[in-house]
């Protein structure tokens, strides 16, 4: 079952995969510049998010994910779509 959307959970998941402190994971932080995440880190994080929140991020959208906020917005949107359905 899909988990309820919770930013703290996203922080913890991202921190675990990127090997950083959860507090560093903030909306305006850039994956590449601020969190030193390379393309493979991002793919791994997205795979974990897909599992945890039962969503799917098309590969084509991957390059639009620049900051944590982009990922959060995507998750919010998916959650809203699910509530409407």
């Amino acid at each position: 079952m899909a988990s309820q959307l919770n930013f703290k959970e996203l922080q913890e998941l991202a921190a675990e995969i990127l090997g950083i402190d959860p507090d560093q994971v903030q909306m305006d932080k850039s994956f590449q510049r601020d969190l030193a995440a390379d393309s493979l880190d991002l793919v791994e994080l997205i795979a974990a998010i897909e599992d945890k929140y039962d969503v799917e991020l098309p590969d084509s959208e991957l390059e639009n994910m620049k900051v944590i906020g982009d990922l959060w917005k995507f998750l919010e949107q998916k959650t809203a779509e699910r509530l409407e359905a």
Partner: protein
Amino acid sequence: MAITTSYRTRSDAVPLRSFKAKGRPSAIAGVGVHAPEKVITNLDLEKMMDTSDKWITERTGIRRRHIAEPGTTTFELATGAARSALKAAGIAAKDLDMILVGTSSPDGPFPSVACRVQNELDAPGAVAWDTLAACTSFVYALSIADSFIATERADTVLVIGAEVLSRMLDYSDRGTAVIFGDGAGAAVVRAAPKGAGFLSWCLGSDGRGYAQVTCGNIEKGAYAAKDTQPFIDMVGPDVFKFAVDIFIRQATEVCQTAGVALDDIDLWVPHQANFRIIDAAARRIGLPMERVAVNIDEYGNTSSASIPLALEEAVRKGRVKSGDHVLLAGFGSGLTWGATLMKWA
């Protein structure tokens, strides 16, 4: 640390096929390897192209790779591995019923590498052929060996994974040139007592992903044309995602089919494509790295040779004992994948 979220299958993923081993059981009786002596380190590559030791190590886990001298053939490496596997198994070449070589870098379209190995070993009468499934070739070939032994059409089969990939590398492409290496590994597979050896298999292919890893101009059939050099080309992030995915699904499938818990895997020998893929999958499967065979730092990605190279090292270092559950799992261009769970004889 294991990531504890439950695993979710992507909507476009194909259902997996898995089989419980049937008929007469078969098991690996001995393994052997042969790698070229020449080693190219990341520091050597720094001098050849715009890359760095740090970049390569962080993204792939590779520090060195063995590279064949120009003119070295795939069948020479294959024969070296074959001889050492026969010795380890205590089998004479004349007792072989089949010789199967998994390779994506044969020395020519024909004859097969397997027939040249047969000639070198002086094992006339054995059936010999090559299996091409990119990095999955070794597992596919093992599954053929198991099938022939199960149906009593063969008693003793030599399975080899051998590659000289360096001749397919474009040294101006730092995305691929740093990854691949050369080498060979072999296993002697023999009929085994009930309850030992291969327990289950998961094999599959998904041609929708054919363009993710290619070699040469496949749309023009230019592999053999004189004016084209066939180079390996790869869509990195797509392969990464597929690979982690298929590693997790295959492990789950073969274990379920054999009735063995994931926790009871004593050693996982994954195809050594990228340390990050292995690490990501191991964490999701819940396997600590002490139970994963990794030697990509030494060899890079040697395609069909990587699983036997890693298995032989684990056996030599005493990491595998009789009765252990050993999981072999590969994936590669095609797309293809294959895994088997065995009880070490």
